């Protein structure tokens, strides 16, 4: 009985998937899922209630590459704490993001400086990532309306192409184009645009690993198209989803510890 119910639900879902009216998805390709559903599945894979990551950022500048290592704790969409582990000059630098405010602590000066507004869109450590890119974990379905505009193959992965448009104006990127792996429902490529449609960044996501129920990219290449250089690689060394993160870590007091 239970198996029959599951089968019935699955059948209903698949029929519903194929037959939902265009709605947000506009003139979607035949057989495409609704854009909203896709986006929610992308969010389910990419976003987490909490996350602990250890990452290496390889910044390819015009004079060569340098590597920065950091450990980050995040909770929800816009609460995060990052501590830099290497190189020596950056070691001990910490950042705390609460909503639209960010505090940076430098052990060399023993100062905590608050950044806000446009400063959050500045480059982190000379990389192609902004503070917002680095520390936000956006729920795309909440911020954007989406439309499935076609299908393409990226590498050897068949993908849906999604066009995202921000529901409100106060977002870092007014629109996005996502290439979402049809099978794993994770983005493999992203293009981020400014309000007037100017391409700002291009992201390639690779080395997907299955962690629990979700697929997640362990290597991402960010390219700020307004900057010269070969981009920034973000390599995740360790990642733990929905981990227990102590509350006190998201406080200014934690910066000086």
């Amino acid at each position: 009985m239970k198996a029959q119910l599951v089968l019935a639900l699955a059948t209903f879902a698949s029929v519903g998937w194929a037959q939902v009216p265009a709605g947000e998805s506009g003139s979607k390709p035949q057989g495409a899922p609704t854009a909203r559903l896709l986006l929610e599945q992308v969010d389910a894979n990419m976003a987490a209630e909490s996350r602990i990551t250890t990452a290496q950022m390889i910044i390819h500048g015009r004079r060569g590459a340098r590597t920065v290592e950091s450990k980050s704790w995040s909770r929800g969409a816009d609460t995060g704490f990052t501590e830099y582990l290497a190189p020596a000059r950056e070691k001990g630098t910490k950042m705390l993001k609460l909503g639209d405010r960010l505090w940076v602590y430098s052990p060399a000066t023993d100062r905590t400086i608050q950044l806000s507004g446009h400063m959050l869109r500045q480059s982190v450590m000379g990389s192609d990532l902004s503070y917002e890119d680095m520390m936000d974990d956006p729920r795309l379905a909440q911020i954007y309306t989406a439309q499935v505009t076609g299908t393409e193959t990226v590498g050897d992965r068949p993908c849906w192409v999604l066009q995202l448009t921000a529901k409100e104006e106060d977002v870092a990127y007014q629109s996005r184009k996502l290439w979402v792996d049809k099978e794993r429902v994770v983005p493999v490529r992203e293009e981020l645009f400014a309000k007037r449609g100017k391409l700002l960044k291009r992201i390639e996501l690779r080395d997907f690993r299955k962690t629990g129920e979700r697929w997640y990219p362990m290597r991402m290449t960010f390219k700020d198209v307004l900057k010269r250089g070969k981009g920034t690689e973000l390599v995740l060394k360790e990642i733990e989803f929905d981990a227990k993160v102590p509350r006190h870590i998201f406080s200014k007091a934690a910066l000086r510890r």
Partner: protein
Amino acid sequence: MIRFLLKGLLRDRSRSLFPALVVTMGVALTVLLQSWMGGVMGDMIRSNAAFATGHVKVTTWAFAENEAQNPTDLALLGVGDLLSTLHERYPEVEFVPRIRFGGLLDIPDEQGETREQAPVAGQGIDLLSPGTTEIARLNIGNSIVRGRLPQKPGEALISDDLAHKLDIALGSPATLLSSTMHGGMTMHNFTIVGTVRFGIAAMDRGAMLADIADIRQALDMDDAAGELLGYFRDGQYHDAEAVRIAREFNANVDDPDDEFVPLARALRDQNDLAEYLAVARHMAAILSTVFVLVMSAVLWNLALIGGLRRYGEVGVRLAMGEEKGHVYRSLLIESVAIGLVGSTIGTGIGLGLAWYLQVHGLDIGAMMENSSMMLPSVMRARITPQSFYIGFIPGVLSTALGTALSGIGIYRRQTAQLFKELET
């Protein structure tokens, strides 16, 4: 003869007053314009040289391409050796390292938390070396509004406007948040010991000046500098020499395809200054030519009208047997006398107005609030030896030329018809 002509001029004001007034106005305007343009352009070129371009500047090729962004990541490396080479090759030029940087200046409250912050456009300058020439070159001593010059590492100056905006007291700590030349984030503590005002809107908005050694430490730029600015030791800009030095230096570059090899540029090749220099150099010729052409046309016209009015007088003089050449010469002498008087008065008035603008200037600060140009916010005229003759000679010349052109009609008068003309 001359006495006779002068009496005629003085007694017949319509013959002398209006032409003299026209010459006076023209000469006065020319002197004022020359002094004004000379002053403004000179100030602009001096400000650019002192703060931004030097007489010759050496940067990397990559830095030169992105100069407006102050890209410290594209700075020169091995600056000590490069400076030695430059001083050995070009002893007539003093090269000094500078680092221009952008950042955020953060003022802490009593708990060390951010109280105020503002973006700064900073310069790392040699302020602490014994015998440094930079303080005098940038006129920093005279630009201090409050406080004093930095005397030890870790001390900095900021613009007075910025200090008021941040509500910062002298001796207060401030933290510079910026990027190292390798792209990393950096924070460095300074003590603000003085405030400055240079009278240049682009500097006075948010300038920060600190010793270059501190900035090197803050931005991780050991033995590096954004730019090396070269100044001729006599303090004057020698355009041809600067261009020669730049060309010669660039011709000896090892690998022209490497974007990080040094590139030398003369002042004229930076900030679109070539056009200003050309205008400054040819200004006297341009002003004189325009003045002579315009004034000659005006005075020619005046003399033609005068000629018509004096048609009878010239006819009587010719009828009485005066030679045409004599009449023509007498008119020329009259016009030279008018030109001399008008030019003298015009030069006096022009110099007076120029002196006023040299002393008091014209404050265009309100229009320059968002400007990034190295232009003084108070523009001043500058009286030079040229100001004394720039209007005078064309003033006399144009009067004589106008009369010479209009007086040609004298030679067309037919003696046989003079009595007939006079009868009517």
